[in-house]
Each structure stands twice: as C-alpha cells, then as structure tokens.
C-alpha cells in the first residue's frame, strides 16, 4: 500500500476562483493516475512568517505556490518559495 503524500498549497484560498478549485482537483486527478493517497492543504501566506516558515512547511512532501496575486503577504509567499528552493522540496509555481 502506498503511503500518503501531503502537498502544501501556498496561497490565500478563495472558493470563487476557479483555478484554486482546479488546483486541488488536478492534484486529485494525478493522485488517482498514480494510485497514491494524497491530501492537499492550503497554507495562507500571512501564516508564513520569517523564522517559522520551515516548521510550517516541513510536514509536507511537496509545495505548490498557487496563482492569485497579489498575495495577502508577498513576503510569506517568497519565504516559502525560497524554502522549497534551498531545502530541496519538490515545488511547482503556477
């Protein structure tokens, strides 16, 4: 049996934005295709403060920076992107 894969989606989720809904759905399609159990969790940009960003993001196995700028905290989004790049976390930015 496959272990669960946890994806952290960086962004300020808005259920009125079709591409936010599509992000979770597309991850679901890919997970089904690979027969893996996957959960995606949204991480609000304002929760990504310098100093604690690593603690917040380490539980995930991949990070995805969602569309929909401007972010509530551009700095929070940039912290997460930098973390993924420097620490080697699989990353997608769309």
């Amino acid at each position, binding site marked *: 049996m496959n272990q669960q894969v946890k994806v952290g989606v960086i962004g300020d989720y808005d259920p009125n934005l079709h591409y936010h809904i599509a992000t979770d759905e597309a991850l679901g399609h890919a997970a089904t295709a690979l027969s893996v159990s996957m959960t995606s969790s949204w991480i609000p940009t304002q929760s990504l403060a310098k100093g604690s960003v690593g603690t917040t993001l380490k539980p995930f196995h991949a990070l995805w920076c969602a569309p929909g700028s401007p972010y509530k905290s551009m700095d929070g989004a940039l912290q997460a992107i930098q973390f993924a790049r420097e620490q080697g976390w*699989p990353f997608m930015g769309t």
Partner: protein
Amino acid sequence: MLGIEDAEHEETAPSAPTLLVSKLACSLVGRTQTIKIIPGSLVHRAYGREEVTEQFACSYGLNPRFRGKVEKGQLKITGVDLDGEVRVVEVSDHPFYVATLFLPQISSDPESPHPLIVAYLRAALAFRTSGKGKQRN
C-alpha cells in the same frame, strides 16, 4: 536569488525602480498559447514532447530587461511561446522545481490528468519515500 535586493512586482509596486515582474505587453487572461519546451529539461521529460498547448489567466511576467540576468543564474528558461517570451523556468540542480506562467491545473481532468502535475506528484512521492522530509523534522 539573483542578487536583486529591491526586486518588485508591477502589480503591487507599480512605481518601484526594479520591476522584476512587469505587466505583459498583451494580457494572457483567458488565452491559450503554444509553448515550445526545451529538450533535455525537466518539463520535457514530464511532457514527453517539445510543443504543448496551455491556458493562461495572468497579465504579468518576467520583465524582459532581466532575462539575461535570469539566464546567468540558477533558473533555466525551459519553455517559451512562439515569440520566444519566457513561459516556464526551472531549477536544474533540484529534485523538482518548476514555475509556469500558464495554469496546468485548469486543463487537467479525471480522464487526462496533466502530465506536469503527475510528474510533480511523482517527485513528491519520491521525496516521501526517501524520508527527506522526516530527516529535516
């Protein structure tokens, strides 16, 4: 990451002197474009082809003024439109690091999951299996 300390985005800081991300000459909101994928790149391996069609919802992109600087740095330009404008960048010395100006997620459906997102999730699975996330906890 490029050593540009005052890098700004035209949407949030329109009068800043160093606009790394600037308004596109022509908005891509609701548009579809043909993208040329650079052979040998991570995205090329994911797609398995050198030309793809993708949908956009944005009006901002890399300021062409900084393209040369980007090309000299850690980011590689691995997807361009038919005019040669940057549409995909990736970091080669990294397990999986891809940024696109288009939205692969909006063209995924249950019968045809998007190849780039499948490749991304495969990288997440490998990361999970290698226990890298655990070691760093």
